[in-house]
């Protein structure tokens, strides 16, 4: 526990030194806030674009607050996933390449403690940033569009957070195998994309795949009732996260023994 605390503390100081503590929340906040605001200004933007023929009439229905928040989530799903992968790709690879890993493991440190300290720090940072940004987007939606009930917002937030945890775990997992950060980012995004493609190809198992998490959280926003297959997705995602963590620790143990 003492070692975990020391490593955990080191992770936070390092994140501060790289300014990850500042830029990551700022970027996530920007991505989520832009959606409600740009939707609000969409009529004005269209009006001022001068490549429309004169006399063109565009009637846009005003979206409800639920639809706007759902749109924010799916906007975050594409850009946010890439940002999370970019932010996590360097974590293990860098320490392996500059030799600090060798120095660390010449002391009696278990690989599980090392991986777990990194994982906990990344999860806390990302979930904190996402929750704050989602809250801000909710606030904006309430002001600009119609009110969205808090109960459906926090449920969708919690469910979507699982996807973020999964993406962080996948990126760390790939990071224990490869030695180049570009490769780590590429393969992690490939894995995330293939989950989505798989759910399109085989719709029968789609309700068990983690890509269903986005649909679930947007559904929760649109109608406020509980979904029947919510348990299936949650179980597979949690099992997947735990399995990835365990394999990662085992695999990492092999690679740091010299």
């Amino acid at each position, binding site marked *: 526990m003492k070692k975990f605390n020391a490593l955990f503390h080191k992770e936070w100081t390092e994140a501060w030194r790289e*300014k990850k503590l500042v*830029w990551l929340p700022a*970027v996530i906040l*920007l991505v989520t806030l832009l959606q409600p*605001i740009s939707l609000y200004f969409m009529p004005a933007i269209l009006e001022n674009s001068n490549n429309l023929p004169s006399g063109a009439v565009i009637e846009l229905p005003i979206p409800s607050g639920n639809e706007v928040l759902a749109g924010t989530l799916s906007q975050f799903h594409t850009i946010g996933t890439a940002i999370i992968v*970019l932010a996590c790709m360097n974590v293990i690879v860098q320490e392996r390449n500059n030799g600090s890993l060798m120095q660390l493991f010449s002391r009696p440190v278990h690989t599980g403690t090392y991986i777990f300290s990194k994982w906990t720090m990344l999860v806390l940072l990302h979930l904190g940033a996402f929750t704050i940004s989602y809250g801000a987007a909710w606030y904006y939606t309430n002001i600009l569009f119609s009110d969205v009930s808090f109960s459906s917002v926090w449920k969708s937030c919690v469910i979507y957070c699982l996807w973020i945890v999964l993406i962080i775990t996948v990126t760390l997992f790939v990071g224990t195998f490869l030695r180049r950060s570009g490769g780590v980012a590429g393969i992690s995004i490939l894995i995330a994309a293939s989950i989505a493609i798989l759910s399109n190809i085989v719709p029968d198992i789609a309700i068990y795949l983690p890509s269903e998490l986005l649909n679930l959280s947007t559904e929760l926003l649109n109608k406020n009732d509980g979904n029947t297959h919510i348990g299936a997705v949650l179980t597979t995602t949690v099992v997947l996260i735990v399995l990835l963590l365990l394999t990662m620790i085992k695999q990492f143990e092999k690679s740091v023994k010299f």
Partner: protein
Amino acid sequence: MENIVLLLLPIIAIQFLLLIIALISCIRAEETLGPKWAWMVIIFCISIIGPILYFVIGQRKDTYK
């Protein structure tokens, strides 16, 4: 009109914050991956994406602390 400015204020503030922090960290860095002046141009000219690019791939962190 005032309404619009108030709405956009947080976004402009965050963008400005990103720019300033990236610039300060770039100036204070002993070494960056590639020429430093190029990074300053990128941070300054490409909004939002520029600072992120610098933070993700521009920083050189191979000194052991």
